[in-house]
């Protein structure tokens, strides 16, 4: 975390087109920024480019024009290895489909990105993982296999995993899209808690307007442009 960087995440004039089968622009001159501790939601109609934008911000999609600056480091054109390191250390992910590794226990799922980072010993990573699971009231399930959990439980484990390396920003792609009202509520509360208590930034793509309305800031997109926010 660089001192004095107000913006955790900055997007400068990002353009992207899909080329198959014909060239269709999906993002047009998108610029935005996310501050530390800010809980931002991105909304818009299906196909407006909000998910595409999220994956560019996540560094997983590198096929775009413009610049994405994460924690003061421009990422355009960085080698894949460095991008992996950035994802590992500075970004946490929560997806619509829970994407846990079914072969591993809940605890191990949470621990994996921490072990990959290698900043802490295995015991420390395990302690941190247990702490996070406890915070999300999932510690009773720590030793279960990932596929023995319900949808809402899986999403909580995914959130714990996204936080294991103390990332600067947590990104979510429709994290409540696949959950019922009650579980959505729980996930929202956890996110809010992360933003206020842990001072982490959150960037969540959602089409759930109730969810969006309760975040600090809504970025509304339409046809590849930011129209509001």
């Amino acid at each position, binding site marked *: 975390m660089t001192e004095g960087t107000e913006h955790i995440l900055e997007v400068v004039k990002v353009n992207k087109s899909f080329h198959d089968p014909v060239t269709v622009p999906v993002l047009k001159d998108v610029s935005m920024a996310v501050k530390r501790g800010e809980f931002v939601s991105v909304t818009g109609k299906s196909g407006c480019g909000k*998910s595409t934008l999220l*994956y560019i911000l*996540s560094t*997983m*999609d590198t096929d775009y024009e413009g610049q994405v600056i994460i924690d003061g480091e421009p990422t355009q054109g960085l080698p*894949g*290895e460095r991008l*992996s*390191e950035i*994802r*590992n*250390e500075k970004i946490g*992910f929560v*997806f*619509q*489909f829970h*994407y*846990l*590794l*079914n*072969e*591993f226990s809940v605890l*191990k799922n949470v621990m*994996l*990105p921490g*072990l*990959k*980072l*290698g900043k802490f010993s295995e015991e420390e990573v395990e302690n941190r993982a247990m702490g996070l699971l406890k915070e999300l009231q999932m510690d009773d399930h720590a030793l279960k296999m990932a596929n023995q959990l319900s949808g809402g439980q899986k999403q909580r484990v995914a959130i714990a*995993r996204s936080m294991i*390396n103390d990332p600067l920003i947590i990104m979510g*792609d429709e994290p409540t899209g696949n959950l019922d009202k009650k579980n959505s509520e729980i996930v929202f509360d956890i996110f809010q808690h992360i933003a206020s208590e842990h001072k982490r930034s959150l960037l969540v793509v959602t089409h759930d307007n109730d969810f969006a309305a309760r975040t600090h800031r809504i970025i509304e997109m339409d046809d590849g442009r930011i129209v509001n926010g």
Partner: protein
Amino acid sequence: MRLLLSISLTLLRAKMKQSVVAAVGVMFSITMFVTLLGFMNGLNDLLDGLILNRTPHIRLYNELKASPTQPIDLTTDSTTHNFVRNVKPKNELPRLRNAEAMMDALKKDPRVLAVSPRLVAQVFFNVGTVDLNAQVSGIDVTQEVLYYRFADYLTQGDPHDLATSANSIVLGKGLADMMEAGIGETVQVTTATGERAMLRVSGIFQSGIADADKVQCYANIKTVQKLLARPSSYYTDINVKLHDLLEAPEMAKELATRFDVDALDIQTANAQFETGSDVRNIISYAVGVVLLIVAGFGIYNILNMMIYEKLDAIAILKATGFSGSDVRRIFLLLSMIIGIAGGVSGLLGGFALQNVIDNIPFVTAALPTVKTFPIDYSPKYYIIAVTFALLTTWIAGWFPARKASQVDPVEIIRGK
């Protein structure tokens, strides 16, 4: 790396059945490879040994030759062609002149392992009214036992007996059968020059080559010298065994010019055995390698399937900070674990199967010392097999692993 290994192992455990099948494929091919080569080379050694053990690396002797220059060649008239060849081969004994000095010189040569003299004579055995033609070789028994495995080919009797007692003889099996002579019996021998002697049979010899056993017999070299009424320096052959067999052809040439005798090296005398061994080796290696390649395809298939099933896992690993090369290493490790597990159990299986074959009875009249199938337990084949196994699994794992490393996580995550 430890983390990647533990991920590989977890993925492997989740697909235990397929992994075991792949490992068994490798194991089977390694088992067959080791067994096949061990067995094939055991046989090769046996067959080669049949001749090569008994054959000196270099044999020095005098050959009866036509006179190379005829008196008429001395005329200088070059306009005529000479075809008068009047001078016949000299009535020269096939003895080696100055044999003892030659042997002393050879013994000092660092390349030489052993030097043993021989005296070969044509004799007749008188059985009733029939005279059987035979060849008796006078040998230095201790040397022959040490360097030419003489004792291995004695089916009855003790080589020690031949070495110590005068007037004793070892008969070839065919010859002994024809004469109905057993151990301790006396046979009558007539030399080419008409000398007669009574010799006691002290052993029966079986070389594995039936024709040779009908005419060949052995006696102490002193006995043969006495039989022929020759002095104790009278030898017809000097057999040389070298430390390195491959030096034989070159050294044979050198000795031939140095001592002015004929010298025959083992490669020239037995070229066909080398060729036979080589061809058998090539065949067994080819079969072994084909087996391994088939096992490699098995691994390739299973890994490919596993990667398709695990696209989600690969995407999530990449999203959470594992790089493409991490993913490649995970799958490569997975393949190598299968290869190592299969390879090691294959070696054990191969050793077990070799043992089984080694205990199957194999009795043949031609090979008196052989009771079971021969096996060559040389660690060389184990090393080759394991190297090949690791190489094949590495290659078989590399392509699917590369594919896994190139998986685009966005496509997987968004595509759902």
